[in-house]
């Protein structure tokens, strides 16, 4: 439907479908096969109970998670959204879902993780978003903040944090699980961290680590991102 040629009118695509389907293509779209969790060899595929289910979601979050909080945890399964994973920390009784932001499959993945959320005593969700997504009538107040941290709904364990206000919201698997626990009247603590650096670096990671520690999730004191061979600096 669009005309990408130079000088031609570019007709906007439809808003209706997140995965860029147009109204005249919709009829020919085939229903998708159901996604599955990809369990590691020898791992029990039956959902099991945990003291705490942690869902950490955001762009480039796998790298942070691997370096900061998965040292004592065992990989249970891969989650079919980019490089997302589910780990089990047996000593603490904690399940840790690290979720790379992938909104297209977030509804499906929420359905796959609901059995774990149903059996967990407590659920903690942390969504990491870029600071530019944060809306406030006093946005100038936050211009020098490394991170803006809010709880969602005021039911969180950390009462020092202020509640997120409309029109802000979170989207994705963490949102789906928090919404499900809330409607089932089960306890859930939800937080959102708007950060000015993604992927997280040493400084931007501090508010995330601080929140995890406060919530009783074992993690390192200081996160150092892995060194990369490539850079944006051209010599």
């Amino acid at each position: 439907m669009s005309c990408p040629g130079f000088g031609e009118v570019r007709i906007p695509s439809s808003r209706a479908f997140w995965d860029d389907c147009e109204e005249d293509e919709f009829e020919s779209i085939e229903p998708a096969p159901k996604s599955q969790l990809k369990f590691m060899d020898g791992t029990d595929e039956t959902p099991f109970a945990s003291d705490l289910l942690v869902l950490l979601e955001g762009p480039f979050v796998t790298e942070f998670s691997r370096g900061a909080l998965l040292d004592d945890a065992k990989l249970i399964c891969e989650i079919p959204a980019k490089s997302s994973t589910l780990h089990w920390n047996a000593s603490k009784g904690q399940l840790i879902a690290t979720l790379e932001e992938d909104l297209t499959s977030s509804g499906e993945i929420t359905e796959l993780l609901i059995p774990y959320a149903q059996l967990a005593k407590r659920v903690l969700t942390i969504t990491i978003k870029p600071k530019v997504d944060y809306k406030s009538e006093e946005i100038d107040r936050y211009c020098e903040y490394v991170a803006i941290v809010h709880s969602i709904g005021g039911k969180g364990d950390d009462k020092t944090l202020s509640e997120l206000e409309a029109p802000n919201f979170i989207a994705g698997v963490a949102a789906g699980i928090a919404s499900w626990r809330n409607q089932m009247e089960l306890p859930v603590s939800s937080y959102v961290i708007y950060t000015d650096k993604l992927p997280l670096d040493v400084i931007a990671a501090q508010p995330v680590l601080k929140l995890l520690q406060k919530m009783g999730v074992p993690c390192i004191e200081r996160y150092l991102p892995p060194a990369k061979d490539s850079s944006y600096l051209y010599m």
Partner: protein
Amino acid sequence: MEQAAEYNFSKMLYLKNKATKLDVANYTVIIPSICVGNAAQLACDLLIASKKLKRIGNLSHSALIPVYGPSAYQHEPNEFVSSCELYESVEDKLLVIQFRTPLIARHTKTFQINLVELLQAARRVIILSGSFGFERRFIDDSPWAYRASDNFKAAHAAQLDGKTSLVKWKEHTGEHIFGGGNALQLFQAFKEKQVPVMLLFRYLLEGDNSTDASLIVRELNELCEDFLQLHDGGDGSFKLTVPKSWNLLFGNEVTELLF
């Protein structure tokens, strides 16, 4: 396929009163499609906020991107937004469905099947939508167009029938409504199940579509004042309430640091 639809249907509905079925007998159901300018969703926002409709539950499905956050409306401050919300007015026998996310195309057909199953006992279903303004080929044409099933037309003959009709909308006959999302497919799905259904849309362009939203509500009120009950005094005017989720609709103020 039948089994799969039933399985999803039972999973997708959550009602606050813990009922497992949604009773929509004798109800008018309003559904927005996710369309150009999000005008239909904005219109539903206005309806819910203005009539102070009560949240009765949610729908979830893999076709919907999950969302969670503070309440979108002043009159229900303790609620949380979700991807598909159900609002009701018992007195007016009105159910409004509000979507807060775009759809995932590959799951939309199963979602539609489930949605039609859920609402097929309704007295009538009205789907609101929008289409790209440049799709209106003749400048003198009405900016409104509609599609209605035969049983809907029969029930609303005074408003829709030919020369004497109350509303001046054009009947749409095309195969697509560009910019209208899944509105037409949803309309066909309800029609196939013999549910009285009308699809009403406005030709509009992306931008500040809050005016389009209030025009949609006003136009709908012309057709169905009996259930919308949006009248104030005797002069035919009515007051709409803007929900708080419309704050900063176009983002933050430009920061002073830029200058």
